[in-house]
């Protein structure tokens, strides 16, 4: 078949053609919504119209055949309309209550997993990892799969004091909002990069490479027409590697992950917060990273046991104090948890009023 004539700068299609009629009618006129169970909620319009949403988990990497299967279900029960969430779930939208139970029945029969709404754990925001990224120090999809298998009950049934937002970043570049999550896994390099001086001079721009370093660890090496890296200053961020391929930073035995906790995005009750480092290093153990999964489950359980209703992890920790968090969770406090980059002034304690544990 002939290739059609290309067009440029058309932009995305107008969203209105993808909105179900009940949404077009009640657009901007929704009155309230109720969470019926972790997989279902209903929105009620000022008109009295109701719209049920059934949320279904997704591994984010989808084969076209799975998308087609989702479309078939939408065509059968939702007049063809469906949407996705910012956390990669699929949402089936039903305006006729009679279709709700048959829809759920078919989703269950086809192996789709419903859940993720309300005070539990929903899908994990994550990056490409070994599946498709050049800078990855771990595999994000595998970690997410291993974590969610273990935490699955919080997706489909078990409830928590508030939602717990999880994220995985396969390097410190942190594509996605990983740095403001309740619990996030951040993969780290831990070794000073190696430089291939032979190819450096042909492939890299000296000022760009020097300028890429946030700690000013890179200086010129005129004799080699290359660069030197000061090992005492390098924090292994990998930014030099990103701008200059002859620099290599991957190291299978040293690459691993760190765990940060207590971040949030919304402004409910308290302001948005960054996640803070509590576990500095766990080795990569594919395919299931058992220690990482155990650490996350442990933190979720300590939070579930100790937080007040509506407190997010960060809010709970701020109320009890970080020193109490480390003792409650029985986590070793290490040098890595003391900021020696840009936030030291903000994060050191300046009063003698702390708890002993």
């Amino acid at each position: 078949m002939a290739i059609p004539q290309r067009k440029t700068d058309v932009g995305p299609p107008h969203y209105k053609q993808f909105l179900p009629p009940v949404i077009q009618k009640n657009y901007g006129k929704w009155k309230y919504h109720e969470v019926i169970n972790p997989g279902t909620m209903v929105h009620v319009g000022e008109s009295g119209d109701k719209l049920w949403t059934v949320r279904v988990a997704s591994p984010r990497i989808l084969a076209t055949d799975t998308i087609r299967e989702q479309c078939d279900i939408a065509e059968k029960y939702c007049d063809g309309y469906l949407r996705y969430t910012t956390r990669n779930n699929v949402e089936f939208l039903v305006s006729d209550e009679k279709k709700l139970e048959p829809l759920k029945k078919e989703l269950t029969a086809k192996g789709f997993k419903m859940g993720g709404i309300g005070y539990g754990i929903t899908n994990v925001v994550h990056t490409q990892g070994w599946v498709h990224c050049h800078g990855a120090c771990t595999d994000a999809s595998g970690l997410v799969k291993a974590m969610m298998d273990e935490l699955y009950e919080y997706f489909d049934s078990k409830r928590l004091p508030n939602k717990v937002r999880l994220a995985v970043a396969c390097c410190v570049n942190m594509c996605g909002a990983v740095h403001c999550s309740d619990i996030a896994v951040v993969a780290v390099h831990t070794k000073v990069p190696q430089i291939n001086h032979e190819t450096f001079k042909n492939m890299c721009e000296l000022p760009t490479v020097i300028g890429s370093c946030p700690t000013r660890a890179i200086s010129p090496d005129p004799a080699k027409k290359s660069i030197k890296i000061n090992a005492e200053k390098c924090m292994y961020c990998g930014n030099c590697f990103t701008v200059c391929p002859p620099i290599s930073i991957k190291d299978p035995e040293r690459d691993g992950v760190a765990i940060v906790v207590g971040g949030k995005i919304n402004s409910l009750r308290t302001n948005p917060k960054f996640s803070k480092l509590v576990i500095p290093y766990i080795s990569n153990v594919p395919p299931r990273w058992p220690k990482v999964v155990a650490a996350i489950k442990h933190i979720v359980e300590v939070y579930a046991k100790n937080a007040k209703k509506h407190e997010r992890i960060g809010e709970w920790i701020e109320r009890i104090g970080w020193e109490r968090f480390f003792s409650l969770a029985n986590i070793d406090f290490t040098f890595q948890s003391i900021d020696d980059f840009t936030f030291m002034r903000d994060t050191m304690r300046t009063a003698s009023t702390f708890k002993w544990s």
Partner: protein
Amino acid sequence: MAGKKYNTPLIDDLEKGPWPSFVTEMKKAAKKSEMSNDALGHLEKCYATKKGYWKHGGIVGVLGYGGGVIGRYSELGDEFPGVAHFHTVRINQPSAFFYTGKALKEICDIWDKYGSGLTNVHGSTGDLVLLGTKTEHLENIFAEYSSRGWDLGGSGSALRTPSCCVGPARCEWSNYDTLDLTYNLTQEFQDELHRPSFSYKFKIKSSGCACDCVAALARADLSIIGTWKGDIKIDQAEVKNYAKTMDIKAEIVDMCPTQCISYDGKEMKINNKECSRCMHCITKMTKALRPSGERGATLCMGSKAPIVVGSLLSWVIVPFIKLEAPYTELKDLLRKIWDWWDENGKPRERIGEVIEIKGMRSFLEAIGVAPQPQQVKEPRKDPFMFYTDEDMAGFKAKEAEEKKTGKYKF
């Protein structure tokens, strides 16, 4: 597909368990595509050796665009020829990720014809991501999609594909039309999106309220957070209903950050002047409480992930702006913002970092926004400040005025 059958015991383990498996998805795609089949073998090798094998992205794309396609090559092209080229194509998603089955199936059909059949629905920024195709297919892919009304998203040092929360389409809390604003800005700034001309990436994300369901405040250079100026209206009958199942004092009154709510067991009162519009009470008592009065948004700027000099959350720049089509005020402001960034930013400096280096004053003056206490958590703590001649003239003029009136004006 008559491809090589790889032995993949490590990633096979990730097909077990209740959570949907990405490995199962890759295997589904591998049945139809040699590329996806090799991607499976390639990934197993990563798992076995604990190392990635993708090379830095090369410069590939479609004619007339500088972005939208991310080049990806494997170091192991000889061993896994199907992933020797494995480029990503970003398709600009419709506002709030709504689709019809018909449209999505068409996207899938085209992708199966030219690519691996693997996707991300969606990528972190918001695009519908098509994972894995070869350089020679890119023009055909673009012609097929663009002729059907789909366009590429942003990549590189350009405006990245704007994205938004579900907004008024299915949420009672949205204070402006996030879908329309996102569509409108995306159309207005097609050139900035497709032809990288910035110092680095620039992200715009729109959330309808302080719940910020697109995480705008943490990852968008321009974070647009919906808010309102009027009172929170209270339906006392619904408050009574909530009281049957909720400890209103503990869960609402005591958790209000400004302590502006009172409840005597019968009636709820809100001292709206003290309210900071955090959304806690409204989200917990959505049937009883709703904002009223003027709607719009707070514009915040500068957030980003840690690379290069540490993560930032966006800073309040414009405390309140009305957001109604055609959004002229916002667009004019954006152009001024980009002009200042263009003048002052070095390559790979996000605007938040440039604001830090050049100073907030330089930025605010350039875009014509006055200093306001809403922009800061607290005023500066150190005494090292700049005084321009104009500043001094202003202070002196004020004192001269005081001499005339006999009244101090601080």
